């Protein structure tokens, strides 16, 4: 990895402004709905929040309002899948995972049915509603299930591509996105292949592996360190399961240290998935930017990210730590 890093390369990913990932989901759902009549959508009284009104308006006969009954929604989705439909079951991440874990386990994953669970408002950035709604355990819950694919896109554009990709894929999928407007910076040229991570920034000193809203912050950290002569590889690990083992092993081998970044509990999330791969293949120092075994609280998303140490500065700090441990 001796290549010279230029400003042009890093500038490839500049923000086109802030946009919500859930908007990308709703728009892509409509597009896929137009192409594939088997796609049906279910929502538990959060149609507007999930941006599913577009689909509902154009395909009222393929939209199923389930009311505030998430367990029923997941099992109904499984039933629809037994008739050949491709159901998209949607709610806030807290209600679409932990609340209905047993339904997902038995009726979806064990039964290997083609159900897509698409969840918004994940993590601290749900904001003011507070800890009851800020699920930080969903990635862990979903990646613990055999047969489940777990996808966490990083911006509006990638959420669109991810939504299309999971609806092409046959089998259970959990797609996680969020509430706030966040930088939209990825491009269609990046493509989207489930299980294949994307290197957004080349580097040889350390690698940051991030998912969701932390990908942009990782990119910011890499750009800051460029000026200090430290080159940071940034990997957008949009699929947590199946994890891209090859990219992780290569990063460990090429850069000798890894920092993970996610809006999720440190236990059971992306960090542990990466650590698992490294521990079994190529042990290197790993630092984790994540919520450290605590619940969130009410507040503005940015204030919460600051308090719970999920900012660009926190990534920088963990990079320094990783670099120290490496040497």
């Amino acid at each position, binding site marked *: 990895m001796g290549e010279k890093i230029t400003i042009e390369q890093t500038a490839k990913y500049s923000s086109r402004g802030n946009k919500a990932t859930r908007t990308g989901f709703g728009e892509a759902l409509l597009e896929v709905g137009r192409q594939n009549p088997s796609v049906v959508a279910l929502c538990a009284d959060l149609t507007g929040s999930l941006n599913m009104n577009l689909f509902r308006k154009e395909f009222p006969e393929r939209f199923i309002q389930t*009311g505030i009954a998430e367990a029923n929604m997941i*099992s109904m989705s*499984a039933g629809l899948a037994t008739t050949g439909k491709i159901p998209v079951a949607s709610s806030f991440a807290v209600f679409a995972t932990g609340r209905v874990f047993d339904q997902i386990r038995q*009726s979806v994953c064990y039964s290997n049915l083609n159900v897509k669970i698409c969840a918004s408002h994940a993590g601290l950035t749900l904001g003011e509603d507070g800890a009851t709604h800020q699920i930080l355990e969903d990635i862990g819950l979903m990646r613990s299930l055999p047969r489940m694919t777990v996808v966490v896109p990083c911006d509006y554009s990638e959420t669109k591509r991810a939504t299309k990709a999971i609806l092409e894929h046959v089998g259970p999928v959990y797609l996680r996105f969020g509430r706030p407007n966040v930088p939209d910076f990825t491009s269609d040229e990046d493509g989207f292949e489930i299980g294949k991570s994307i290197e957004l920034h080349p580097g040889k000193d350390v690698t940051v592996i991030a998912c969701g809203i932390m990908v942009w912050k990782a990119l910011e950290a890499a750009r800051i360190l460029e000026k200090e002569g430290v080159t940071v590889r940034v990997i957008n690990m949009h699929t947590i399961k199946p994890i891209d083992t090859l990219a992780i092993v290569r990063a460990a081998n090429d850069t000798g240290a890894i920092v993970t970044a996610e809006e999720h509990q440190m236990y059971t999330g992306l960090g542990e998935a990466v650590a698992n791969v490294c521990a079994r293949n190529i042990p290197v120092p790993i630092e984790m930017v994540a919520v450290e075994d605590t619940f969130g609280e009410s507040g503005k998303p940015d204030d919460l990210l600051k308090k719970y140490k999920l900012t660009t500065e926190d990534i920088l700090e963990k990079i320094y730590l990783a670099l120290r441990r490496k040497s």
Partner: protein
Amino acid sequence: MGKHLKPYPQEKRGKHLQLSTIDELKDMARQVRRDVIRMLAKSNSGHTGGSLGMADIFTALYFRILQHHPHQFRQGADHDMLFLSNGHIAPVWYSVLARSGYFSLDELNYLREVDSYLQGHPTCESGLPGIHIASGSLGQGLSVAVGAALGLRMDGKKGEVFCLMGDGECQEGQIWEAAMSAAHYQLGNLIGIVDYNNQQIDGEVSDVMDVEPFADKWRAFGWDVLTCDGNDIEHFIDTLEYLRKDKSRTKPVVVLATTVMGKGVPFFEGTMPDKSNWHGKAPSKEDEVKALEILGITVFGDF
């Protein structure tokens, strides 16, 4: 055996068997009970009571009522779909599936064994014909059936969806979420059948957690309610044929089928003197010999 073989080998399927007379059906129900006792005694584990209690209903459904073809599972354009929500009575289901032609009778030898298609609770992951989805964790099946009924209706299919449940299972809140949604979506193509035996593992349903007034609850949730004797094949068939005659139903229907847990073998029936029941116990070898003697042999023969 060999559940890794997918799809289930065609040559191992049996002949599609349908029965026309009540006498034949009664004989088959007796054979199904023999199968249940023999399977459970052999595996020395499993749920005897509910499997015996539902033998008449399963026999009536698979050999007379259902529009289905065992060799066109999942392909039948207008076939009925059946979901067993209280999956623990799988042995009676396995028996009728095998005897109506879905898979080889030989599979019945391997209930609950490693690598067997016949898992302790029903599963579809092995591709065993006849089973659409796993069940065992209670309360999910009616929701699944609601989804399937919506799916069939969207495609304009004529098949109807059957969902079998236990009365104790109706203590699960999700059953009532599903009931509410079935009425909301006016699922006239959905038929619920409840094994109304007032038994669950800890004792009588009325003692453990009363579900009464049961029929009123279903009516209040927007369902039509029919009652019948679930151990009287003729009565059950009459009830089902009566309700299926009406093709313009716009409400889901539930049949509360009164049954006796353990029916057919007197020493397994109902509540035992010590207040226990045969919900989750398997017959011993001695029980098996005695039970088979009471049931007697049939023209269909043991597996």
